[in-house]
């Protein structure tokens, strides 16, 4: 399942480079000289024990935290000090480990907020109902509806986001992030709280998203999912990168087994 993107010939364009990033919170080094890159069209897994620094890595990439040293390059340009919404507009979108939807907006409106990320419509356009406004608005609506269909909740587009079940809320998060039209889509434990059958569906969704032309960075603890869907995996432990490679390589990496997977793999049937 790795015939797209990275492997289909052509130069390997790096979408994002994490370049020697260190971040400290007081005495705690959450990321310690971490470097890796993400190539266009691939699905990269980011795994590691709890507290290894995965979410922190997302936070640095999306401007929530500023790295103590090192930098993140997107399309070759550093993201340092860029406002968060600018980073999103450049093309990085994310979901949240603890779901954070606009709870009292409808499902469709949630996605449209994402879709507005690149809109140039301003106050005067809206007040005067300029052609630009009308055009952008209808385009966003169409796009949002499409995305809802892709993640499979288009039937509930008029529901309040808060009223969705846990799983559907995660789906909505993904749709909203995709709506910002990112080059790179970062998913933070999208399968948490899913049962195995739903995880299967999610894997399909992630693949589909990649096939739509997105590059995906995935944090996940469910090994079946990670192994099944990613092209490459980066492993963190105590804020340091301890391994990088294809799923097969990682599965057999003794350091990863010791730090993360555990020896007793009885449930990985």
């Amino acid at each position, binding site marked *: 399942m790795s015939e797209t993107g990275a492997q289909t010939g052509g130069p390997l364009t790096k979408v994002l480079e994490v370049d020697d990033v260190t971040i400290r919170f007081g005495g705690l080094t959450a990321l310690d000289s971490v470097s890796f890159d993400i190539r266009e069209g691939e699905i990269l897994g980011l795994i590691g024990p709890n507290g290894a620094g995965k979410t922190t890595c997302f936070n640095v990439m*999306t401007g*929530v935290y500023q790295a103590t040293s090192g930098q993140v390059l997107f399309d070759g340009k550093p993201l340092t000090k860029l*406002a*968060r*919404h600018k980073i*999103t*507009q450049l093309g990085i*979108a*994310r979901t*949240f480990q603890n779901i*954070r*939807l*606009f*709870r*009292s*907006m*409808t499902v469709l*409106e949630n996605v*449209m*907020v*994402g879709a*507005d*990320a*690149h*809109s140039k*419509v*301003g*106050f005067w*356009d*809206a*007040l*005067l*109902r300029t052609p630009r*406004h009308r055009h*952008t*608005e209808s385009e*966003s609506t169409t796009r949002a509806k499409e995305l809802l269909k892709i993640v499979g909740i288009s039937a509930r587009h*008029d529901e*309040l986001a*808060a*009223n969705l079940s846990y799983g559907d809320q995660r789906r909505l998060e993904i749709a*909203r*992030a995709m709506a*910002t039209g990112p080059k790179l889509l970062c998913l933070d434990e999208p399968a948490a709280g899913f049962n195995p059958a739903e995880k299967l569906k999610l894997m399909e969704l992630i693949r589909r998203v990649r096939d739509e032309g997105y590059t995906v960075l995935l944090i996940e603890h469910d090994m079946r999912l990670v192994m099944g869907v990613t092209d490459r995996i980066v492993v963190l432990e105590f804020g340091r990168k301890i391994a990088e490679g294809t799923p097969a390589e990682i599965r057999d990496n003794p350091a990863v087994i010791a730090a993360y997977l555990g020896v007793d793999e009885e449930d990985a049937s």
Partner: protein
Amino acid sequence: MSAATTERTPAVALNPLQRLGLWWDGVVDRYNALPKLSRLLLVILFVLFCYALPLLRPPIITTNAIDFGGVMFSVAAFALVALGLNIVIGYAGLLDLGYVGFYAVGAYTTGVLTTYHWHWPFFLALPLAIAVTMVTGVILGAPTLRVRGDYLAIVTLGFGEIIRICVNNVQWLGASAGIKDIPHPNTIGKKPVPPFDPGGMFAIPHLKWNGWVPSLDKVHETHFLVFGAVDAIPYYWLLLTAMILVLLGDRLVKASRVGRAWEATREDEDAAELMGVPTFKYKLMAFALGAAIGGLSGSFYASSQGGYISPDSFPLLLSMLFVAAVIVGGSGNRWGAMAGGTLVAYLPERFRAFADYRLLVFGLALTVLAVWRPEGLLPPRRTRRAKLVEAQIDELEGEGVVDE
């Protein structure tokens, strides 16, 4: 909204205010179901009715203890203010407890331009008053909007007070004695010659009611488009016109990217930011727009009947009442905000019969209203639906967990 029809048959007993919400939904639905032409006709009729209200002096509604035209003017002024503040609080979720400051800036700009230092005509001063207020909004907002949540509330409260105290102490602005004799908008038609000639193009008689029987009241007439101390109705018309314009603008802007950005910011600022919403820009925009509308209203206030403003006209308490208007009405719904504004301005006047007790009654009414209908009179329709569900839960659970 076909789904709404089924949802509107609740299985549980509702309190009258909740029923009001449902009734309103019904009105909106029925209105939406009408053909375009009838809708237009209805709107025109309704607007005409609003204009005519102080002339019709319908029984029960009309305040007899105090000049009804004046009451309608302050009702309209409050509704307009609530409309502006609704953008700030209801849409963008910024709790502004110093809104009266903007009202004051609008009023004082008008006062200074038309009376105190210059002698501009009112309609020339008005746009400048709006602009000055908007700029004030930006100047105050730019540094402070980074402060979040209830911290913002106290900072805005502080600014409201700072504005008032500055006005109170700056001689250039009339200090605590205020500005007197602010000119009225130019009368259209024959100028009145005080003290004993009313002027005007023509006079419109009022209605007077004997029980439910109306008759023409030729003694009390409104002289058409005379803006003076004697009659508040022309001001009311002016303000109503401004309000309708603002209402239209509000509608257009809310149903757009701008409106969505405000809502997203209100719901979760971090998440909005990470979805590409320049939240600061939108907060500032909401703040400035709200300010401008407050300034507009303040400018009208300054040149209204009394033509007198002083720092006392802009007490902190007024800010609280503005906020109360928006929230009691239903934060986030423009109709709700206007209803709230109407209520907050009208009730104390209506309670004049209670004489000394009117503020007490008003305070109690506010609390009862809040406790009885926490989501406001006319909350945004979505909230209303959500709340209905909650009411049903409570009903179904009957004697649920009893505290203690």
